[in-house]
Structure formats: structure tokens, C-alpha cells
């Protein structure tokens, strides 16, 4: 007869086997763990000190993972089978071989089956925890510290200044682009080209000497300034066109439009457009609005510009202007105008530029929040012992009676329409215009204290014990 129906011998054996195998795995894990921990520490140190990549610290988990694989490999050959587990239970619970017999499927009598039930107690494994753990304690702590301490980010590597020949080449390219697009007036570009020639000559003679480099810097600044001015002009022209648009849309009285103020506005706009390059015959004849071309020609000739007479014509003129400005703005964005005004010349490559941007926006992407590798930057703002607030010093306290002036203590002597004049100090020279400033400074010292104020001060200091409320 088999074991009693309520008792499942095979599940007891399975459970026992799993526990025993777990024990085997853990024991073998500890066999490799100290070595793997030390490898983890080594890897962390390499990552931090040699490679200078604090964000790679989680790699330390790799040797720990390796220890798991090694432990598994080592344990596989030592895992208990069900039969071995049954034999272990036999020995553990003094079943005298009943467990092995039951496992082998040998039918047992009822009393023997009852005996077998004793074997279902879960096996109690006795771990020698401290013995196993002792060698791992120090490496685990070290690894924890290495993982947790805030680590300073790496300093960027040294950059070098751009060689003079390269600088000249870059700026020449820039000038050529501007020339091709016709964004900058020719006279300005001619000036830049002359400077490039001078630079080339100087660089040929003394490549890399400070004055030549400084001249190249100056040129790049001027270029950036011209670009920036051009963008500003484009923007302000667009604003002016928009503000004039109000008249065309609302159809305000054209007499208003002909007013002097608006004429001035329009004249300013025409001047700006002239500065932007609408001052040459080819440019004007390209305009599809003949009226605007006429107005512009008249303006350039110094004559009074005859402005459109009705809102429709005005609208047409503004549309043409807007169109022309848009073409300019498109060209400007095509050749990335304005990049020179910011960091175009600071860094040599796009990668450097990106690195600079990310450095400036902080590791966490939020400016000023440096990320946890910056130590203090991410720390909470706390007050240490040095800065603990002295509560008493900040307690609110009522002033003693009479310390603050009340209305009944004041006496109106006279009411003046003008602010009072400063009385010259006794014995002081009449303030001349140059000495006026110093007199103004000193007159505060000489000013008489008002009676009521004097009284208040006297009472405050003579009162023996100010009542506290």
C-alpha cells in the first residue's frame, strides 16, 4: 500500500530538491563572489579613473552577473535529483530507506506509509552565513561606496585655437556666401575682402603671431556684427511694414496716412530698405510693383516720395515690400545668418558646439541643475550648524509705547506748495555749481531734528523698562 492519500510524497521530495539545489547554488555563488566583487571594484575604478565615465558605473554589475553564471555552471553537476533528495530526507528524518523506496514506486504498507508522513517536514538548511559572507563584506562595502559617492564629471579636454590660415579660409568662405546671396552691401564686403588680403599677407610673414590672430578675431567679430545688424534690420523692417499694414486693413482716413508722422515712418522704412540693398536699379526693376519702385526711386533721388492715395494701393505696396523682405529672410536663413553672432566662431566642429551646449545646460538638461555627479549642485539646500537661525533674534517684538509717532504728537507748522529748500550749513561756503553735489550729501547731517522726533527719541532712551507685550 502507498502512503496515505492526504500525503503527497512526491511533492515533498520536489520541494526538498528545490531547496537543496537552491542551497547548492548559493554556496557556489559565494565561492566566486569575492573574486567577482573585486573584479567589479576594479571595473568601477577603471571606468571612473581611467575612462572618466561616471555614468558607466552600472557596468560593475557585469562581473556580478558573471559570478552568477559561474555559480550556475559549477552547481549544475551538483544538483540533487529527486532520488537523492528522497535519500537525503531518509537520512534527515531517520526513515530507514522508506523515502527511497517510495520514490522508487515500491508499494508500502499502511503503517510504513504513516512513518513516511514524518518525512514531509520541510528540510531545515543550516547556513553558515557569517562564514560565507565574511570575505564578501569588505568588497561589497567598497563597491557600494564607489557606486554611491558623487563623482565629479570629467573636465573637457584642452582645445586649441584655430590656426590662422584656417580662420582666414573660413571667413573668406563666409564673405563669399554673403556676396553670392547679395545680403550685405558691396562696399561692406569690399572692406572685408581688403582685410582678408591684409591678413593673408601678415599670416604669410608671421603665422600665428598674436597681432595677426587678434586681427583675424576682429574681422570675425565685424562679420558677426554685420550679420547681426542685417538680421535686426530685417526684423525692424518687418515690424514697420506690419504697423503700416494697420492703415491699409482698417482703411483709416487717407488724410491720416498723409500726415507728417506717417510720412516720417514711411521714410524710415524706405531708408532701412535702402540699407538692405533696395538701392540699385537692378533690384528696383525686379520689383513687380511699379509704384513702389517709383516711390523708392524718388526717395533715393532725395525727392518727396509721393505716397499711395488709397488703401488698396497701400496694401499692394506693403505686400510687395513684405515679399521682398521674405526673400531676403529666406536667403539669410539659407546661409545660416546669425550663427556667427552666437557661437559660430567659438568652437571648431559641430560636435564641440553640441558638447558646449550640453555642458552649459547641465547634465540633467536643466540649467543650474548639475546632475548627481556634481555633488553640491544637486544637493538639497540645507542649513548646517553654522547657519542655524537664532530664533530669538528673529522673534517679533512690539516697540515700546511712544516709540512710533502718532498723529497727535505732530504739529503742523505750515504747509508749503514747494518742497523745502536745503538750509546752507552754518559756516559753509555758498554752494557753487561744482560743490552742489557735496553740499547735498552733507546737508543731511546739518538738518535739524524735528521736535516731535527729538521727543520720541528722548522718551525711548529714558524709559527705564519698556513694557513688553
Amino acid at each position, binding site marked *: 500500500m502507498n502512503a496515505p492519500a492526504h500525503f503527497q510524497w512526491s511533492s515533498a521530495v520536489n520541494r526538498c530538491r528545490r531547496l537543496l539545489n537552491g542551497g547548492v547554488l548559493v554556496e557556489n555563488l559565494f565561492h566566486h563572489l569575492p573574486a567577482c566583487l573585486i573584479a567589479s571594484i576594479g571595473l568601477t575604478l577603471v571606468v571612473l579613473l581611467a575612462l572618466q565615465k561616471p555614468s558607466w558605473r552600472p557596468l560593475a554589475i557585469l562581473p556580478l552577473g558573471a559570478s552568477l553564471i559561474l555559480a550556475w555552471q559549477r552547481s549544475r553537476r551538483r544538483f540533487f535529483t529527486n532520488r537523492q533528495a528522497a535519500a537525503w530526507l531518509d537520512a534527515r528524518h531517520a526513515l530507514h530507506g522508506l523515502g527511497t523506496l517510495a520514490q522508487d514506486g515500491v508499494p508500502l504498507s499502511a503503517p510504513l506509509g504513516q512513518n513516511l508522513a514524518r518525512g514531509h517536514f520541510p528540510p531545515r538548511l543550516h547556513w553558515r552565513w557569517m562564514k560565507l559572507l565574511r570575505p564578501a563584506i569588505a568588497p561589497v562595502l567598497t563597491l557600494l561606496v564607489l557606486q554611491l559617492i558623487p563623482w565629479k564629471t570629467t573636465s573637457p579636454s*584642452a582645445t586649441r*585655437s584655430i590656426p590662422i590660415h584656417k580662420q582666414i579660409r573660413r571667413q573668406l568662405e563666409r564673405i563669399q556666401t554673403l556676396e553670392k546671396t547679395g545680403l550685405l552691401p558691396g562696399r561692406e564686403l569690399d572692406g572685408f575682402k581688403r582685410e582678408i588680403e591684409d591678413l593673408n599677407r601678415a599670416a604669410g610673414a608671421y603665422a*600665428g603671431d*598674436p597681432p595677426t590672430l587678434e586681427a583675424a*578675431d576682429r574681422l570675425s567679430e565685424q562679420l558677426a556684427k554685420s550679420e547681426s545688424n542685417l538680421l535686426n534690420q530685417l526684423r525692424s523692417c518687418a515690424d514697420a511694414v506690419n504697423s503700416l499694414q494697420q492703415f491699409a486693413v482698417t482703411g483709416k482716413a487717407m488724410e491720416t496716412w498723409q500726415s507728417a508722422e506717417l510720412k516720417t515712418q514711411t521714410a524710415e522704412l524706405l531708408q532701412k530698405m535702402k540699407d538692405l540693398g533696395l538701392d540699385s536699379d537692378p533690384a528696383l526693376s525686379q520689383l513687380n510693383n511699379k509704384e513702389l519702385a517709383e516711390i523708392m526711386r524718388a526717395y533715393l533721388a532725395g525727392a518727396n516720395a509721393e505716397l499711395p492715395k488709397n488703401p488698396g494701393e497701400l496694401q499692394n505696396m506693403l505686400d510687395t515690400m513684405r515679399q521682398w523682405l521674405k526673400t531676403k529672410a529666406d536667403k539669410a536663413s539659407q546661409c545660416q545668418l546669425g550663427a556667427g553672432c552666437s557661437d559660430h566662431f*567659438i568652437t571648431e566642429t559641430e560636435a564641440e558646439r553640441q558638447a558646449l551646449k550640453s555642458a*552649459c545646460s547641465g547634465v540633467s538638461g536643466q540649467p*543650474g541643475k548639475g546632475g548627481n555627479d556634481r555633488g553640491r549642485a544637486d544637493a538639497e539646500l540645507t542649513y548646517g550648524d553654522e547657519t542655524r537661525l537664532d530664533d530669538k533674534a528673529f522673534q517679533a517684538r512690539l516697540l515700546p509705547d511712544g516709540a512710533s509717532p502718532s498723529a497727535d504728537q505732530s504739529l503742523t507748522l505750515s504747509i508749503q506748495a514747494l518742497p523745502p529748500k536745503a538750509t546752507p550749513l552754518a559756516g559753509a561756503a555758498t554752494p557753487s555749481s561744482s560743490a552742489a553735489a557735496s553740499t547735498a550729501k552733507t546737508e543731511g547731517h546739518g538738518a535739524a531734528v524735528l521736535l516731535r522726533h527729538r521727543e520720541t527719541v528722548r522718551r525711548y532712551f529714558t524709559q527705564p523698562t519698556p513694557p513688553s507685550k
Partner: protein
Amino acid sequence: MKFPDTLGFDPKLENQLILTEVSAVMNWMRKNSLWPMPMGLACCAIELMSSGASRFDISRFGAEVMRFSPRQTDLMIVAGTVTYKMALAAKRLYDQMPSPKWVIAMGACASSGGMYRSYAVLQGIDRILPVDIYVSGCPPRPEALLEGLIQLQKKIQIEPSLLRQKKADC
């Protein structure tokens, strides 16, 4: 590879011959003729000025030739709070300095942002520049800056100057 940090000197040949290596001579010249760029950005700059004045006299260490053109300097002393706006200018100036060049972060602000944990302040100039020496203090006394300078001189003396130059140029 060890680089000589002193000049070889044979007493028998005194006044006639000094044996050394090119690298040591170059380093010796560089460390004793630093041309600083005073990047004074806040209160620390006052102490920096004081270091240059007669009482502390930075010229005792050969570093008195302060220049305001980056093209003529090889040591940037960042003294003060570096705001993001100024950080770009500092970076640009550093880039314009000829190699070899060094950076001293003077004071808590330049080293780590100091007490300004603010949206506007760069948390240490070492985010954008390779700092060689950090001088602690808020502000550091001029003596501290001079100590930093001496430490930098020691660092320069043992630098593989030729290799560094080569690396910077390639």
C-alpha cells in the same frame, strides 16, 4: 616615462655646462613666465587684483604680465561666479589662447558654482574648460592663489611638454 623635473647640473663643470633635456628647459621657461589672463567675474577678482599688487606681488613668481587679449596669454585665472552668459565668453577666450595653456579655478564659484545653485550659474568652470588647479576659498586669500600658482608651476615642470604640444597641434 619619467620626465626630468630639474636641470642636470655638474659641479665639476660649474659655470661652463648644464646638462638637461629640451623638455625640462622648456618647462622651466614656461613655468617661470606665465602670462595670466585675469578672468575676473565676481568678488574673487578683487583678491586676484590684490595678488598682483605690491603686498603679495605675483611677479615674484614670474606671472605678473596680465594680458587682456587671449592671444597673448597662457594661463586663465577664472576668478568669480561664472554665469551661463559669461561661460560662453570664457570658453571662447580659452579657445583663443595659444597652446600650451592652463586654467586656475579661483574660489568656490569658479570651482563648483559655490553658493550660487541657481538657474543662471554654471556649476563650475570645469564643465567647459580643463581646469589644472582649483583654489578653495570664498574668496581665497591672495596667498592661496599664489600657492595655487606654485602648484601649477610644479605641474608644468613635470609635464611632457613636447608631447603635449604635439598632441595639441595634431
